[in-house]
């Protein structure tokens, strides 16, 4: 089996999407694509359930009040990684909002919420009860740190597994 999965990295501005991808893959494209066309594509081959799969990661420019995500970039995605900054509570809300929009566009594809910057525990704003309640809704949530690399591999493995089993 040879599968190729389109995975979209979504999240608010400056939550660390590009840093997470950079931790995970080696890119051939310049970051300037992010600011010019709003997306940069990366790739990494993984082994899932004994099969080889290629994760084609669409690192999509973060959304804020001025810039909105091009929905055409999300079309055809087989999975989404919703990235939030644990030190900024509002970014988790943005992630959840983007998740909803993604569902409308591509259906219920596997999605993992990544609470990034887990190394900055002192500035951590997210409430554990809130996270627990989200998990109870069936959402997959992982803590990551692009700075230390903690949880990064697990996060991509989790989305790969989710897409492969879908």
């Amino acid at each position: 089996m040879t599968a190729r999965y389109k995975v979209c990295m979504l999240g608010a501005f400056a939550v660390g999407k590009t840093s997470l991808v950079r931790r995970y893959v080696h890119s051939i494209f310049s970051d300037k694509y992010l600011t010019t066309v709003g997306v940069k594509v990366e790739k990494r081959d993984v082994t899932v359930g004994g099969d080889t799969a290629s994760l084609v990661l669409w690192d999509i420019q973060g959304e804020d009040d001025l810039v909105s995500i091009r929905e055409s970039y999300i079309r055809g995605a087989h999975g989404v990684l919703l990235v939030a900054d644990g030190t900024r509570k509002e970014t988790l809300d943005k992630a959840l909002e983007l998740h909803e929009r993604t569902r409308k566009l591509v259906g219920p594809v596997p999605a993992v919420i990544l609470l990034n910057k887990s190394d900055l525990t002192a500035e951590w704003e997210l409430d554990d009860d809130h996270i627990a309640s989200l998990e109870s809704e069936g959402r997959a949530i992982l803590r990551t740190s692009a700075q230390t690399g903690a949880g990064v591999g697990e996060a991509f493995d989790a989305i790969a597994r989710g897409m492969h089993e879908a």
Partner: protein
Amino acid sequence: MADSETPRDDATPAEPEAGRGDEARSSEDRRDLQEVRRLLVGDEIKRLGQLEQEVEDLVPRAVDVGRILPDAIDAANAEDTARLGESLTPAVEGALHRSVRKNPRALADVLFPVLGPAIRKAIQTSLAGMIESFNRTLENSVSPSSLKWRLEARRTGRPFAEVVLLHTLVYRVEQVFLIHAESGLALAHAQSPTITAEDPDLVSAMLKALEDFASDSFGEGERDPIQQVAFGDKVLHVAAGPKVLVAAVVRGNPPPDYSVRMAEAVERVHTDFGDELEEFSGETAPFDRADDVLAALLDEKIARPKSAKLIMVVWVVITLIALGLLAWGVTAFITWRMDERDRRNAQEQQVKDLGENFGVLSNLSQSMEQAIAELAASQDVRDQALAAKAERRRRLIAAMHTAPGLMVMEIGDDGDRLLLTGLRDPDGADPDQVMRDAGVDPAVVEALWQPFMSFEPSIVLTRSGRVLDPPDGLDLAMRGDVLVASGTADHAWIIRARLLAPTIAGVSAYEDDGVTDLDVAALQAVAARMAAMHVSFPPGSPEPAIDDDVRMALSAVIDELEATAGRADRLVRVELRGHIESQEIGHGVLDLKQRRCEAVKHELELLHEGVRLFFVVVEQQDDVAGATPPAGLDHLRFVDFAVIDTGAGGDDG
């Protein structure tokens, strides 16, 4: 053995029931039974034991073999590598076959690092060879275009072949992507073997992203996909369908029907892979079958620069050139024929000349042989001459070395002549004579002598002889640096020698004690003669009885005395002594003596007016009684003379 126990076990149940007396019989039966067993199955039992032993020994033996196996292989390798390889080949081949059948991936993983580079290298070599061959072909071709491209290659620093390819290439499709329209994932990809492409998954996705970006940004409501994106000398052609895009990277300008072919390809994919596209969830394996569709789009076309018109022009040019060549050839042939005739005549003349030259050469050869012989002879002569010259030179140096008053400073050759530079004392040996004595002809020696003074005793003696000019009877000799004179010489020479000798170079002192002064001797002889003379007086008379003979004799002796005293540079006094007889006493003796001396003196002074003689009257106190007359007189009435040397004289006495 374990087997021997079994019959015993079988026999055991009978024994308890047997009595004591039965034991002997039972034992005997057992022996019989054993004997029967031995006879029936003895060999098998023995063989069984051996087999059991072999089985037991197998494991330790395998361990032993395993221990020595590496060493054994090493030893076999060292002895004969080929033989070991031959022995192992079937086993290794069999093992490889089994391994591949069982799990191909294992071997593929092992070979992967080797195969990749090997394949790349083979492809590179093949391409390089092709380019090189192409390059050579191009290098040999000349056309206005190729000249232009050659200039361009030189200017840009690119290989000529590459420049030609770029110019002659109408178009080339370098890559074709089959892209899933919704996700942008690469479903299939094909590329030209001559290019190096990036990961098709990434390129496809970014192409799709760009396509989305352009469509979103500049599209007008309805989705209007990009059809072409031009970048540099490449164009990205896109043909879009509902489910897939076919994108082709093309260098140059493809024919108009190429976009149709792309559209057909899109349609065919939709037709062939409708279900797979509908159910697509990332699995791309089914689309491997689309490779043929994409490969058909990998197309290229090389330009054919020579159009029919151009070919026509070329043919016309070639024909004109051919005609020109023909005309030139005919003219050249005629000229060549004429030249050929002239050349043949010239050659005949040359052959003739050659014959003559050969004769001359032959004579020349003989002359040369003779010349060589003469040369050899002259070489001998030259050698002999050289030897003679060396010998002459040696003798000359030896002779000069011993000759007095000659000192050789330098000697050299100038052809046959000897060049000699040296010092010569004028009183030394005669160089020419020395050369002759040494057997060297003075004519072949060019000598340059500088004068000098030698202090050699022989030279000093010669020099003294030359300066002093000794008279006969006088000898000169050197005693060290003292000049010694002996023999006889006149007074004047003696005096001159005493003055000059000390001034002669090399003479520190002069001795002439052994020299007799001839003039002094003569003076003494004359004085003696005069002393023997006397003048007689008559008795009682103061006037001498003197005749002319006496007077002449006296005059002569006085002249001689004068002369010899002058030569001997002596002052001489002549004393006159008057004598009287006893009978004359009483007549004034003293007065008579005086008067008689004065009379003789007067007479003598009349005879001689010399300056070196002066006469003195000396009163003679004769003992008259005992006196005896001188020879020739019988009385004592006389005056005689005594010559007294008073010492060295002067110029005016």
